[in-house]
Every structure is written in structure tokens, then in C-alpha cells.
């Protein structure tokens, strides 16, 4: 399973990268895209929207099913990736190369509570 060690994760299959400006970049894991199959629709939140930790804020749909994407921590949406909205299949091709949205966390320390690669790998194994 492809789980880069430099990223953080949630049990709901989002990956999170901490940027030098304090924002978080969020996408879905390779395991998630594999499980969903061919993606055909992505809906992203409005920039400026405030979200709570665990709040559903985006939707990805594959040929098979629709799936909510959750905010890993509370904060404000600062950017969304319009490229994946135009071409959802990019996420299937490279789930870690194509982010969905960026978020400025309300509390930077919350990031520490996210899963590391080993913990995420273990969580997926228990699915």
C-alpha cells in the first residue's frame, strides 16, 4: 500500500501535508481512490468557509458511489484545486500528487493528533 511517511492521515482516508505558511493541504489517500474506483465528480467547499474537525466539506463520486470528504481539523478553507474538479480522474492516477483543498487550522497544535503513516496503515488493515 502506498502511504508516504512525510504526510499525516485520518481514519476517514484523507491525507494532510503541513505547509511552511501554516496551512494544511488535504487530499484523499491512494487506498481511498482504489476503493472508490474511477472518480467522475468532485465538489469542493467555498473558499472562506469555516469548518469544524470531522465536518463533511467536500464530495467525491466514482462510477460506483458517492463519498464525503471530512475536515481533518477545524479551520478556514483558503484554497481549492479546480484542476481536480475539471478532471477527477487525476486523483485516481496520483492521489498524493493532486490535492483537493487547503485549510488554515484554527489551532495549529491539532495537527499533532492526526495519524502518522504507520498508524494509518494499521487503521486500514482493520477496515
Amino acid at each position, binding site marked *: 500500500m502506498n502511504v508516504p511517511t512525510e504526510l499525516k492521515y485520518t481514519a476517514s482516508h484523507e491525507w494532510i501535508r503541513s505547509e511552511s505558511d501554516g496551512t494544511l493541504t488535504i487530499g484523499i489517500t491512494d487506498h481511498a481512490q482504489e476503493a472508490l*474506483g*474511477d472518480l*467522475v*465528480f468532485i*465538489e469542493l467547499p467555498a473558499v472562506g468557509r469555516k469548518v469544524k474537525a470531522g465536518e463533511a466539506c467536500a*464530495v467525491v*463520486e466514482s*462510477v*460506483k458511489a*458517492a463519498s464525503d470528504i471530512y475536515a481533518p481539523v477545524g479551520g478556514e478553507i483558503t484554497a481549492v484545486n479546480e484542476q481536480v474538479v475539471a478532471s477527477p*480522474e487525476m486523483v*485516481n492516477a496520483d492521489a498524493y500528487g493532486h490535492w483537493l483543498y487547503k485549510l488554515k487550522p484554527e489551532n495549529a497544535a491539532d495537527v499533532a493528533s492526526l495519524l502518522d503513516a504507520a498508524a494509518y496503515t494499521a487503521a486500514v488493515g482493520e477496515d
Partner: protein
Amino acid sequence: MLKQTPLNTVHRAAGAKMVDFGGWDMPVSYGSQIEEHHAVRRDAGMFDVSHMLAVDLERGNASGDANEHANKNANKNANDGPRDFLRYALANNVDKLTVAGKALYSCLLKPDGGVLDDLIVYFLSENRFRIVVNAATADKDVAWFRSLLDEHGAKLKFTPRHDLAMIAVQGPRARERVWAVLQHLTPDAKAATEPLKPFMAAEVGEYFIARTGYTGEDGFEVTLPATDAADFWRALAAAGVKPCGLGARDTLRLEAGMNLYGQDMDETVNPLESGLAWTVDLASPRDFVGKAALLARAPTRQLTGLLLEDKGGVLRAHQKVMTRSGEGEITSGTFSPTLGASIALARLPAGVVAGEEAHVEIRGKALAARVVKPPFVRHGKSLLA
């Protein structure tokens, strides 16, 4: 414990993603299901459909215990052949089958008109018909046919063929690929099957080859001994036929406007409200199971197609549809790889007409959709204006 087809180990060795489909362990895809879909529309793909059940119905001494009980019809119908029995058992009329090898699509109805299953019946000779039924309903169908035979009094041999496998090879180049593979096994296969028109079948040795399918493309459905299935599958793959899973099978059949039993119709709805009026013969004077119920009540609903026009999601089963004539519900919805748009079958009020605007509720939003008459795609081409 899930049931397995004779190709189960072949699917697993190919890395297929497996799912529980009606109690069977079946491949949903081997990689990208959209690529599998396009392979069928543009070239050739194959599906393991061995979970479906073939049943032979033959004249002769009934081997089953089902017909041993005396009943009021026992003497009257004792000399009936398979055709006489099926004329009564099926909603479509087997008298349309005049040429040996011809196939007919029909619903199997309950007395109240509800759909027990949909099936294909093949006329092989006046002494032998073959029926192919769905996997999840097979046990129910077998029990139903046995009780109906008993009630009807026809002395027929009824044989579920669990010894057979079925492989559907579909696409514009499907037939030539099948011939290329079969020429090593049965050299006369091409000569026997090249003249077949759509919905016709031929028996070549132990292979039963029908020009039928569930994709809207040309191709064959090949029924063969289960013990030959893995070798035949591998030979087709080597000849360039792409293995396809149930995921692609679903998007292909939906584009082709074909119903899926258990999703678009079931025992709670009748065929006239399921887009299947063309398969019900109400014109002839014959009686059949469910006829009286269908005649007693005019349909108030219809099954029709929807094309999503707004962006905002994908049409899915059970989403609510709002029309000028009232509300309805999507029975099957997906993203159409051929059209690059979302399509669905929906059960809507009878007054709705093709071309009309409707709205579908997706995540709290009412998205615009157009009512269209299925099919959406045939032979690789969009049928939408």
C-alpha cells in the same frame, strides 16, 4: 460462504476486486472499470456470467418428483410439451419462436403481476427449450417452475445445469475473437455461428453459442462445460479480449437501457410499469400467469430514462425525482462513460413524456434532468438528440 464460479481462481489470480453479488463471489473490476467499459464499446470485452443458471426443459419422462402428485390438470395436460407449458408460464409468447435456435426475452410473473424474474428462453426443438435465469433468483425460480409444472400437470423433465459455465464476449470485434479461439477447439464453430442473426443460438459440440448480450453491442454469450471455462477464458484474453467486471457490466447495460432485476423491477411491480410492455403479449387469446392482474389495472407509473443536465453529482438509485405530474424515484443511476454524463432509469408518473424537464434531489439540491426514452447508447453511438 459465497458461491464461486468455475473462473473464481482465474479472477483472483488476475487481481480482480471481488464483491458479494447475490451470494456469489464475483469480480467488480480488474483495474479501471471505465477502461473495461470502453473496451466493450470499441473492441471486445468478456464477462464471467456463470453465476446465472441455465435450465433445460425437455419432453420425456419426468425425472423429478414434482409431477408425481395427482391433480386436476394431470390428465388434461399430461401430453403437453415444453412449448405448451411455457405458453402459460411466461408473460411473453413462446409462439413467437418459430425457428430452432431463436431466443426470447420474457418476464416470469406472479399471479398478481409482480415480476419474479426476467429471463431468456431458447427454442432448440419442440422437445427441448433452455431457460437462462438470474443468479440471485435462481433458487426461487427453480422452486416456482417445479410447482407450476406440478399444478399444470405437464410431464416434462426439468434440469438445472449447474455443470455449465457462461462467458459473455461483447463488443464490435467480439465475434471474430471468439472464432479465432474456437477454431482450435471446434473448427466448425465459425461456420455454424457466422450466419446467426441477433437473438439466435447454435449448438456446436458442447458449446452453446448465442448472439445475445447485456451491453447494447454485438457479441456472443457462450455456454460451455464448467471444466473448459478457465482454458477458454485464458485463450480469449490471449486473443485480446479484455476481462471486464460487474461494474462495467452495469454501466454498459444502463447505457443500453436494459433493466437489472432486483433494482429496476422486482416482485412488487409489474412489467407494464417497468418499461417492459413490449415483452408482455396481451394481444393473443392465450392465458398466462399474471395476465388477469395486468388487465385489471391500468399502469399509473412508467420506467423511463433520465439525463442529468445540471452539474452537481451523479444520479443514483433511490434519489427523488420531481416532475410536473408528481414525484418518482430513480431505480438505477450511474455515470455514463460513453456520454460523459450521468444517466438513470427512473420510475415516474404515467403522464410524464420524453423531452420533459424534471428535477432530481441530490444532497439537498434540485438538479435539472431531462426525461429521455432509453436506450441511451447502441453500438458505440449516443442515441440522445
